[in-house]
């Protein structure tokens, strides 16, 4: 019905008229923009120009703005430009567009060397801030714990039990399954390589020491950081986004006491339990593979295991668990409370929570290894 838009030049004596026809709407925007740009150049030479819009069949904000853009650029070129033939329907739209002040867009996304250096510098300086934030949270949690000890009635048992169910009970199947499989793999690899030296039976020593001292707890801690640390960050982060944490604060509750402490306690209790179950599952899996694949029957396996490991190995492993749980929990809660208003920020902090959680777990494991080596355990 309304044809393609056109902008025609008609000379009327001294004055020049630019006659717009057709549909000046968003769907024709590329054509319109080109026409307007051409007309800006064509206009040179004449003193006054009429932009005649009486023949325009359809006009929307895009079209109205382009006409306005044409008028402005002509006016800037010291030409007297006027819009004529405006129908009553469209005059208010054109008036509305005329009020727009065109501000040049400042593009801030340019990549420069100084900008990159600036970012690197800020990131390095941010490391100190991260550590300070973790220590701050540790202090706040300990203070809240101490307050709860003084006033045991303010302790949130229901919440703690709820979180214990979430992070411990519901995590058992996946933790047991994965550690079982890892136990199988360690045993299989051990037998495969030890067999060449005729030292099949030493796979039991390797499995026992590795699982109880290192792999069991480390693997479980990494899984918990991925499973529960991310959940804590997402929960606290979305509460932060929707001002729920501010609401708690205004009601006189300490978010650390209400939200963080139960989660931390649940995690600190859960990780030793999961690490123990994981270690048992890994030993069972390793024993099964040693029997079926390596021909070490269960009785011989158990005898060898009893000789190879002592209670020290078990203690070294399990003592690390609550400390790692505390690190994961603190990282997750700090990240959760640092979430800003956007969905993207929630995603970034959840990622950071898992990455930092796993990083600190491995760092802690190294620190423990040095410590136990120096006390001879």
């Amino acid at each position, binding site marked *: *019905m309304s044809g393609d838009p056109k902008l025609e030049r008609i000379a009327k004596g001294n004055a020049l008229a630019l006659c717009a026809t057709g549909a000046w709407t*968003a769907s024709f925007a590329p054509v319109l923009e080109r026409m307007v740009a051409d007309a800006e150049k064509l206009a040179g030479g004449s003193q006054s120009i009429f932009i005649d819009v009486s023949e325009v069949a359809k006009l929307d*904000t895009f079209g109205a703005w382009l006409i306005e853009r044409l008028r402005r650029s002509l006016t800037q070129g010291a030409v007297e430009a006027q819009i004529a033939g405006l129908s009553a329907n469209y005059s208010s739209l054109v008036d*509305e567009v005329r009020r*727009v*002040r065109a501000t040049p867009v400042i593009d801030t996304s340019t990549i420069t060397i100084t900008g990159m250096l600036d970012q690197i510098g800020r990131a390095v300086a941010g490391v100190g801030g991260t550590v300070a934030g973790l220590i701050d949270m540790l202090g706040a949690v300990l203070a809240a714990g101490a307050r709860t000890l003084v006033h045991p009635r303010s302790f949130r048992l229901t919440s703690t039990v709820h979180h214990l169910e979430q992070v411990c009970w519901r995590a058992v199947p996946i933790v047991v399954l994965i550690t079982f499989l890892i136990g199988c793999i360690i045993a299989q690899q051990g037998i495969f390589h030890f067999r060449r030296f005729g030292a099949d039976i030493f796979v039991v020593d390797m499995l026992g020491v590795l699982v109880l001292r290192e792999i069991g707890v480390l693997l479980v801690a990494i899984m918990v950081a991925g499973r529960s640390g991310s959940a804590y960050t997402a929960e606290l982060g979305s509460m932060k986004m929707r001002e729920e944490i501010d609401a708690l604060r205004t009601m006189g509750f300490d978010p650390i006491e209400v939200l963080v402490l139960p989660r931390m306690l649940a995690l600190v209790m859960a990780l030793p339990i999961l690490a123990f179950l994981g270690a048992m599952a890994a030993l069972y899996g390793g024993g099964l593979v040693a029997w079926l694949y390596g021909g070490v029957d269960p009785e011989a396996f158990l005898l060898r295991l009893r000789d190879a490991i002592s209670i020290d190995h078990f203690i070294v492993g399990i003592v690390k668990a609550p400390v790692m749980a505390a690190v994961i929990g603190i990282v997750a809660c700090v990240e959760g409370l640092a979430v800003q*208003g*956007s969905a993207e920020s929630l995603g970034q902090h959840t990622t950071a929570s898992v990455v930092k959680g796993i990083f600190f777990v491995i760092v802690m494991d190294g620190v423990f290894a040095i410590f136990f080596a120096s006390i001879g355990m």
Partner: protein
Amino acid sequence: MAGEIQNPIISVRDITVQFGATRVLDGLNLDVKRGEILGFVGPSGAGKSVLTRTIIGLVPKLAGSIEVFGVDLDSSNTSQRRNVERRWGVLFQQGALFSSLTVRQNIQFPMREYLRVSQRLMDEITIAKLTMVGLKPEVADRFPSELSGGMIKRVALARALSLDPDLVFLDEPTSGLDPIGAGDFDELVRTLQRTLGLTVFMVTHDLDSLYTACDRIAVLGNGKIIAAGSIADMQASQHPWLRQYFHGKRARAVMG
């Protein structure tokens, strides 16, 4: 197109919507005429938002038909439906701005998807839309979390208007605004309706909005439209809920 002028822009026939065992809309009929501002009222929980969401296709219906711009949304193919969606804009109750995009990116998002427009023109149109909804161009590079409640509503309206729609759905546009802000918003809807030739479907609780902005009012109750007409018709109605709504303490205060 000539036919469309007489035909209603939205025509809802015998719509039934059910959630579990509760029937929210029960054989509802409603017409929205071209170029009018329809105010849609009713008690809380009566299903005003449900009807809006059913028309725009977010809630599945059990029975009935919906025609928008003369297109039956059930029997239409994807491109017809896409065409209809391009011609309407929706302002959600909470704004529903994309939180990880700036105001500028939010407004340009539909343009990028549907139009082939240069970045310069998009930037200029963004500023134009912001000016139209009464915001300063400086707002363009802020994120939604840095805006006040009223500003979020205005930006959301600018986004709803970014493709120059023929029809806008406003879900409680003035809720959460102070009376002056709400009055400005009503004025704004009126002005935009005049300049852009919009048809407005407005769910509201605000008596002021009904008096100042709306051409016609439809009232929802028991899953049906219990009354539709001008404000005078509403005041004359004998329906108990309407009597309470339009002759209550607050209504008298509004009427002065």
